[in-house]
């Protein structure tokens, strides 16, 4: 016997909240995969810490989505009983950890975006979202600092670390565009002052990214083709494997309390 997927009534606000929750869960899960494997104990702690921040954000967002939806779903049902096509996270965040450089570049691209995003969301007319944003922004500010420091160390460290950091930037760049895209479902919420319009965040994001990458003696790719699809459930092949591990207990023992 296996547990079936839940159905979600994705009103614009439910969908909007689930997208942010999925971002936090999937990246938090990826970071938790590092546990016991990091290059040094201090980084083992830092990556776990960042993962815990993100898990905390995910739980608050899922709980809010459940409340808004009002159909008896909860944080665990959203996390454990939706399939790949129902997940709404950014493609960037489901990309495998790869080496430490790849994990750090992924973190750096996202955290720099998230920090701007949460800061803007603190002005949301939705008080719950504004409160979640205020807490998350404090966390993402640290994630930006931690990951930028590593970008600089790796870029300006040894020949090998420079090469690995550059490869990671080149490979992940095409996933950054999705952070700034908006669909019709979000447009209405933006107009109502509930959701954040990400488009104006791109120039300050690019400025921070370019500054750090430059100091790290690395370069940003010229390629401006951007992959999209995560927000509507068109994911990379990696997500299915992540979910099969994440969800294995809930799928094998349906309806149990843990």
């Amino acid at each position, binding site marked *: 016997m296996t547990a079936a997927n839940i159905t979600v009534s994705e009103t614009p606000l439910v969908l909007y909240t689930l997208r942010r929750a999925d971002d936090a869960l999937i990246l938090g899960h990826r970071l*938790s995969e590092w546990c*016991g494997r990091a290059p040094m*104990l201090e*980084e083992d702690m830092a990556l776990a810490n960042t993962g815990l921040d993100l898990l905390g954000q995910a739980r608050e967002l899922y709980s809010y989505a459940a409340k808004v939806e009002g159909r008896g779903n909860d944080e665990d049902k959203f996390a454990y009983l939706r399939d790949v096509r129902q997940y709404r996270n950014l493609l960037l965040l489901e990309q495998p950890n790869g080496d*430490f450089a790849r994990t750090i570049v992924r973190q750096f691209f996202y955290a720099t975006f998230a920090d701007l995003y949460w800061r803007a969301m603190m002005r949301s007319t939705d008080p719950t979202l504004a409160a979640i944003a205020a807490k998350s922004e404090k966390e993402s500010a640290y994630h930006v600092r931690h990951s930028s420091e590593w970008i600089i160390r790796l870029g300006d460290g040894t020949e090998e670390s420079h090469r690995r950091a550059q490869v990671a930037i080149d490979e992940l760049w095409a996933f950054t565009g999705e952070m700034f895209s908006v669909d019709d479902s979000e447009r209405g919420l933006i107009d109502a002052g509930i959701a954040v319009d990400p488009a104006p965040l791109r120039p300050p994001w690019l400025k921070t990214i370019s500054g750090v990458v430059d100091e790290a003696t690395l370069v940003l790719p010229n390629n401006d083709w951007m992959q999209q699809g995560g927000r509507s459930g068109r994911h990379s092949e990696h997500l299915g494997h992540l979910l099969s591990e994440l969800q294995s207990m809930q799928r094998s023992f349906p309806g149990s309390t843990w």
Partner: protein
Amino acid sequence: MYTQALNSSDGEDRHVEDAARAAQFQARIDAEERIEPNDWMPPAYRKTLTRQISQHAHSEIVGMLPEGNWITRAPSLRRKAALLAKVQDECGHGLYLYAAAETLGSSREELVDAMLAGKAKYSSIFNYPTLTWADIGTIGWLVDGAAIMNQIPLCRCSYGPYARAMIRVCKEESFHQRQGFEIMLTLCRGTDEQKAMAQDALNRWWWPVLMMFGPPDQASQHSDTSTKWKIKRFSNDELRQKFVDATVPQAQFLGLTIPDPAMKQNEAGNWEYSAIDWEEFKQVLAGNGPCNRDRMAARRKAHEDGAWVREAAMAYAAKRRQRAALQAAE
């Protein structure tokens, strides 16, 4: 260098001086004074403590692996966050203990290298696999429970930095122990399948956990001097008995059966357990446990895969120093 020159004395004199110092040192221990890093201490005391503290640190780090095995599969978001935080605590304990060991004059790198080379030991309990979610509950309940029994007396250990580290570690461990018990309680109040999972985990962990207290008193190598130096305050068998007596009522509360049908309570109220299979203990210690090779391979892989990152951090720090020096010279 200079202090060494000042302290030097020759041949006969030094033996007399060392004997006097050793007597003075023992008097301090007997008076329950704490020994601090800059105090004189017998070389064997330093060696014993370095071995014990670094083994303890290695155990925390290797101990991250069996529990880390379930972080990505934890059955709820609440459990996932708690487990990740718990394993992160263990990493913190490892760091803290390496720092305590460093006060005795060995660097973290040397100590870690000895572990990776297979020359230093870590707790054998982590050479057993975590096969189901109930193993995570059982590790918290029993393995952390046994660790607390061992470590609470260490809060009064004669060596100051170790004693202080233990106070903090014990606080976090008792939180983990309660968390583990709560996982077990949830399973035992759950479905038949969950309860069976909990019983199966107890069956597999019970005897290895009893072995955590070390060989029986008659066979223990290090106890005599450790007791004299007040590093150790209770014998292996005393601690083991205390643990069994505390655990039996907890198992009864959970409705689980301890896998020792001959176990009985004596008139003094102590639970008498059957003979422990010390051959199994010896085999696991010798590297033949179910996971010894996997654990060492995982630690070595993390160390080797991370080498380029540590090198990059060093290279960058050196460049920064160089640039700062150039700037200062201008």
